[in-house]
């Protein structure tokens, strides 16, 4: 599955439009991780656990989007957009990772 955030694919011929595909994942309010991140925020340094979680959430969102594209018979997704939105929550940091794009079939 070829993913691109551009409008077209250079040197590739797009044959068919397959539809919009989306994928989302959520990083919820995990009290303990949040607490440790809070400590790190005060003392400084990288919150590696948080980075790991965000990376995992992004991979899940993209994978979910790819799976849908495959089901639609596509072999590529163009105009891909990935965004991170803070949705509040108990500890004020429920983060939604969303990915969407246009599924296509190219030669």
């Amino acid at each position, binding site marked *: 599955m070829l993913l691109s955030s551009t409008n*077209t694919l250079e040197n590739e011929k797009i044959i068919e439009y397959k539809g*919009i595909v*989306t994928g989302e994942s*959520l990083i*919820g309010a995990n009290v303990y991780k949040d607490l440790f991140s809070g400590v790190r925020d005060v003392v400084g340094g990288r919150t590696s656990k948080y980075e790991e979680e965000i990376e995992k959430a992004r991979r899940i969102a993209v*994978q979910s989007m790819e799976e849908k594209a495959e*089901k639609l018979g596509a072999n590529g997704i163009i105009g891909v957009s990935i965004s991170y939105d803070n949705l509040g929550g108990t500890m004020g940091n429920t983060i939604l990772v969303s990915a969407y794009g*246009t599924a296509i079939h190219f030669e």
Partner: protein
Amino acid sequence: MTLDTYKQNPRKTLTAICCIILGTLSGIFTYIFFLFFNIAIFGWNLGLIFAPLIAGYVETYLALRWLNESIGAISAFILFIVTVIYGFIIANPTLGMNFITLGSVLVIVQAAVPTLINYILLVVILGIISYFLGIFKKITDYVYYSLRKFYFHKIKKEALPIKISKNTFINDYKNCIRLNNRGFYFITTNNPVNGKIDKYLGPYVGSSAFQRRMKMVSADFKKEEKEMLNKLKIAKFEALNNLADMVKKDGGNGVIDLKIEYELVDMGRGRYQVIAHGTAVVIKKE
């Protein structure tokens, strides 16, 4: 030594009874001592703790000395009954029904029947708290995740595969196919794929809002997250369908430069909005 052994040996039985009586008497004297000198904290007499403890200690000490075994601190339980009857019913000299009293009653009961109270405190209460906070699930999840990570990183020498809960996405697949089968172009790029823009209709916005179920205490964070994620997904498809309906109504058959946004509408009340917006167009297939 069992109860039958005591029945068969009257001398041992008498010794055990003596131990209980002496333990009980020492407990009563302790209670009188604390009451006489009014040794109290916040109006709560410390004799209520020390009397059963002393009674149990004396009885056990004597039993170990004379019988070479403990007989179960029966005098502590007797003292518990005595102190509660005297303190609450007969005299009520120091106890009033307040928070401290309730706490003290718990401590007295703990001194008298420690196994039962420890069970209630450690198993029942902690069990209820941990159930609501999901601590044990978090610990087991963490152990499972660490072991899995170790296995894949150190033994198999490959990246940890992502596990996606399929039940979260059941409706998502169906909705995705349904959305793309409605004869409408949802295009995230600036140009239609294999098509030509015949007419621009302008910017259009489709939206959908929902309210998150707010809980004072959450039993399962993962379950809440799944519910939240499913609601977001449903709202997203509603927003996209609303956008398509509006564009179709005005004679369009597609949207280009489509964007989807997720927003928290009012902080703290759990209202969310999903917006799908783009430029509505009429696309002619080439």
